[in-house]
C-alpha cells in the first residue's frame, strides 16, 4: 500500500513517526541531492551534507508546512536556504550567492564561446548560480515559475528572467 505525501506528513507529525518521514526522504532524496549537486558543481559530498541538513531541518520544521503548497516546493525552499548559508559561510564564493540576482548580468565569456558545442553538464556550469537554480527547478524538476519563486524566495519576474536567460545561454552553448 502506498501513502500519499499528505498521509506521510500527517503520520510524521501526529505520531512523530520517523519511518513515515523516512519514506518521504526516499521519495525526494534524488531531486534534492541532484539539485544541490548541480549547485555545488558536481561535488556530491557537499551536496549530500547539505541535503542531509535539508531533511533534518524539514523534520524539525514539519509543523510549519502548509498543505496549500507542494511538499517538494517546500523542500526545495529549505535546500535553497541551505545552499545560501553554505555560500555565505564561504567568503570566496560570496559573489555567487543565490540572493536575488542583479537585473542585468551577462557573462562576457558566454558570448565569445557561443559557437562551441558543450555537453549539457559543462553548459550548465557556465550559467550563473541564479540561472542554474532556476533552470534546474523549472526545467528539470518540473516546478512552475510560481513554485520556483516560492522555493527560491524571489519575485516571479526574476524567476522568469533567470529561466529565459539560462535557456538562451544553454541554447547558444549547445547549439540547439
Amino acid at each position, binding site marked *: 500500500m502506498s501513502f500519499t505525501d499528505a498521509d506521510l506528513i500527517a503520520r510524521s507529525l501526529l505520531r512523530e513517526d520517523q519511518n513515515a518521514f*523516512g519514506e518521504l526522504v*526516499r521519495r525526494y532524496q*534524488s531531486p534534492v541531492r541532484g539539485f544541490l549537486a548541480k549547485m555545488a558543481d558536481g561535488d556530491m559530498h557537499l551536496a549530500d551534507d547539505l541535503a542531509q541538513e535539508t531533511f533534518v531541518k524539514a523534520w524539525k520544521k514539519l509543523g510549519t508546512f502548509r498543505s496549500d503548497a507542494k511538499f517538494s516546493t517546500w523542500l526545495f525552499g529549505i535546500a535553497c536556504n541551505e545552499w545560501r548559508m553554505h555560500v555565505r559561510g564561504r567568503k570566496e564564493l560570496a559573489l555567487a550567492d543565490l540572493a536575488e540576482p542583479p537585473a542585468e548580468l551577462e557573462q562576457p565569456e558566454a558570448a565569445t564561446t557561443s559557437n562551441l558545442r558543450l555537453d549539457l553538464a559543462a553548459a550548465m556550469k557556465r550559467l550563473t548560480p541564479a540561472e542554474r537554480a532556476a533552470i534546474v527547478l523549472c526545467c528539470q524538476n518540473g516546478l512552475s515559475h510560481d513554485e520556483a519563486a516560492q522555493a527560491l524566495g524571489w519575485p516571479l519576474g526574476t524567476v522568469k528572467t533567470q529561466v529565459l536567460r539560462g535557456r538562451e545561454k544553454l541554447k547558444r552553448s549547445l547549439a540547439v
Partner: protein
Amino acid sequence: MKNELSQPSERYDPLDEQLRGAEEYVPDNGFTARVLTALPAKQNHAWRRFVVLTVAVLAGAALAVWQLPALLGIFHGALPRHWSAIQWPMVTAAAALLTALGSLVWAMFALVNEEE
C-alpha cells in the same frame, strides 16, 4: 508511485528534452538511513503522559479517602434510612480503587498504542 514532481511539458522544445533526459535518478546508497540516524531523538510524550496520569490518579484517590468521613456525614443525613445500613465507606473506597485501576489500565493501553 509517481511523485508530485512529474509534470507534463506544455510545448515541445529540444532543450527541454535534453534537460529532462540529463536529470538522472540519484541512487539512495544509504542516504535515507543516514538522515534518519541524524534526526533529533523522538520526544517520548507517552511516558510523560503516563507518569502525569498515574500521579494524578493516585493523588485523587488519596484525597478522596482522606476526605471520606466528612463527605459521608453529609451523605448520611440526606439518604433514606434503609440505605444507611450499607457500608458506604467500603463502597466508596472500592469505587475509588476501581477508578484508579481502570485509569492505570487505560494509561497502559495508551502507552502501548503510542509505542507501536
